[in-house]
């Protein structure tokens, strides 16, 4: 299966979509998207509002099913896999709008992701804390994101910046090999922005990252390759230099930003 002849050397490819379509009624939100993420790559997906970025991420993570086309994770077809199965296979995501467990604490939020990942999700008799490896990993993740001092506070009472960090921490706690970051710094006040950018820059190198972003500073600072989505279709893909000098991209996207 993994030896199937794909366009490039399959072992180097972390995530790939093949002719992906998604229609909502008469609207084609995803139009023939064939996207390739190389292993360890920092890839940014940009595009104007309404370009279909969120639809694409929902297709990749299994929230939505494609109308046609295939999705391959490390060469294996995951098009039909449920959202939680994709996580177990190594594909995790964050959300543009916080999707946290408001009534819980960061300890519980991260703890749950860790116990799932360590195969203890069905453990119903012993507590989360009985397992030393689980506790160790919870502490490691909380510490890496600077959340240890608030681990016992109610998530809904945390400052917004901390909530954004927790959003990423919970995804990292799933030990993904491919991570989809949906506008990680969205809505974060200026003072707390650096914390988020720091965390994004320091993500483990072996994790392949797809960054969906509006903020061009963050894209140019972080990404090695960029794909441009316009009206549901891939306009082009290339290195940062190629994209920033591409006249078509300037016309539909960067040009728009220049005037704005």
């Amino acid at each position, binding site marked *: 299966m993994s030896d199937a002849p794909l366009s490039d050397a399959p072992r180097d490819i972390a995530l790939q979509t093949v002719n992906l379509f998604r229609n909502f009624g008469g609207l084609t939100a995803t139009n023939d998207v064939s996207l390739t993420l190389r292993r360890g790559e920092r890839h940014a997906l940009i595009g104007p509002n309404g370009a279909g970025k969120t639809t694409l991420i929902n297709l990749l*993570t*299994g*929230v939505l099913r494609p109308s046609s086309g295939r999705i391959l994770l490390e060469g294996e077809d995951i098009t039909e896999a*449920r*959202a*939680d*199965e994709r*996580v*177990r296979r190594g594909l*995790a*995501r964050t*959300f543009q709008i916080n*999707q*946290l*467990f*408001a*009534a*819980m*604490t960061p*300890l*519980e939020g991260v*703890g*749950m*992701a860790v*116990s*799932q*990942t360590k195969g*203890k*999700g*069905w*453990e*119903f*008799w*012993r*507590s*989360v*804390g009985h397992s030393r490896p689980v*506790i*160790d990993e*919870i*502490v*490691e993740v*909380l*510490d890496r994101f600077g959340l*240890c001092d608030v*681990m*016992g506070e109610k998530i809904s009472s945390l400052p917004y910046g901390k909530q954004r960090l927790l959003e990423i921490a*919970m*995804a990292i*706690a*799933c030990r993904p090999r491919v991570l989809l970051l949906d506008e990680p710094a969205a809505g974060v006040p200026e003072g707390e922005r650096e914390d988020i950018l720091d965390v994004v820059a320091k993500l483990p190198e072996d994790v392949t990252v797809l960054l969906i972003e509006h903020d061009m500073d963050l894209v140019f600072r972080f990404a090695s390759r960029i794909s441009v989505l316009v009206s549901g279709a891939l306009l082009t893909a290339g290195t940062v230099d190629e994209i920033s000098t591409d006249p078509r991209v300037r016309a539909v996207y960067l040009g728009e930003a220049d005037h704005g």
Partner: protein
Amino acid sequence: MTTQRIATLRLQAVGLHDRLSAWHWSEYLFWVLVAASYFLFPSRHLLMNEIAILALFSLSLDLILGYAGVISLGHAAFFGLGAYTAGIITKFGVTDPLIGLGCATLAATALGLATSFLALRGSDLTRLMVTLGVALVLYEIANRLGWLTGGADGLQGMDVGPILGFDFDIFGAVANAYSLIVLFVLFLIARRVVHSPFGWSLRAIRDNPLRAAAIGVPVRGRLVAVYTLGAAYAGVAGALLAQTTQFASLDVLAFHRSADVLLMVTIGGVGYLYGGLIGALVFKIMQDTLSNLTPQYWEFWIGLVLVVLVLGGRDWLERLAALVARRTRPGAGR
């Protein structure tokens, strides 16, 4: 240096984790009062027995409503099946109550598992209708199978043997002790389960199913499991009622059973296990008191209390507890 820091953080995390699942003093108090009530009101064993059974029934609904967010209007299906199973089995010569309890649990578990796939479809409204429908179907099956269930007359002549050597007495002393002990044991099990990784993931699903799936929680599988667990608990409650009253009738499957239990959980508050227990107690005492005062119209008052409670906020117990805590510890809040 760094390892030292990590070790400290680790201790903090373990300490916090343990505190999240530790017994609160009020929980000890609650169970001491339950045990004390058994000896303080020897003339009310029959009423207390019924309260214990309804408390277990409410606890079972709280598991699926409060921990997984699945609303059901047909929870009596499992209660009734448990009651009939425990009753019918004595007709076949199996009179040991514990074996009867086990068989009723198995039957309710099987029905829970089978119907979970129907009940977990679609929106809240769909779930309400499907659960309601399942209970109605079961009611009419019991009605139709008169040769087995006694139909509209009820299951006559149940012969329940002694429980661990104690014969059930007419004052209900043994029955009450039996129900209370079963309630306590099943409560302990439920409490353990909700503090496990499985239990945490149920709360996660209730809070945000989208995110729960995004951290790898198989949402459907978990809901099936907890729905089945809730069904099993309801089956035990039904079996207790049949065994301790030596009778089962269509009433155990009736719509008012499902509605009442939803009321009890609402009164006590969902999602912390004690809600069902307290709700059953308040409901039953209210019913008992009001039906003495106004035998015909007591449901008027229940209805009024319900409306006030739901509109005024269902966390009344929490706020009451906070108020008491403030009063009893002057200066603690500064």
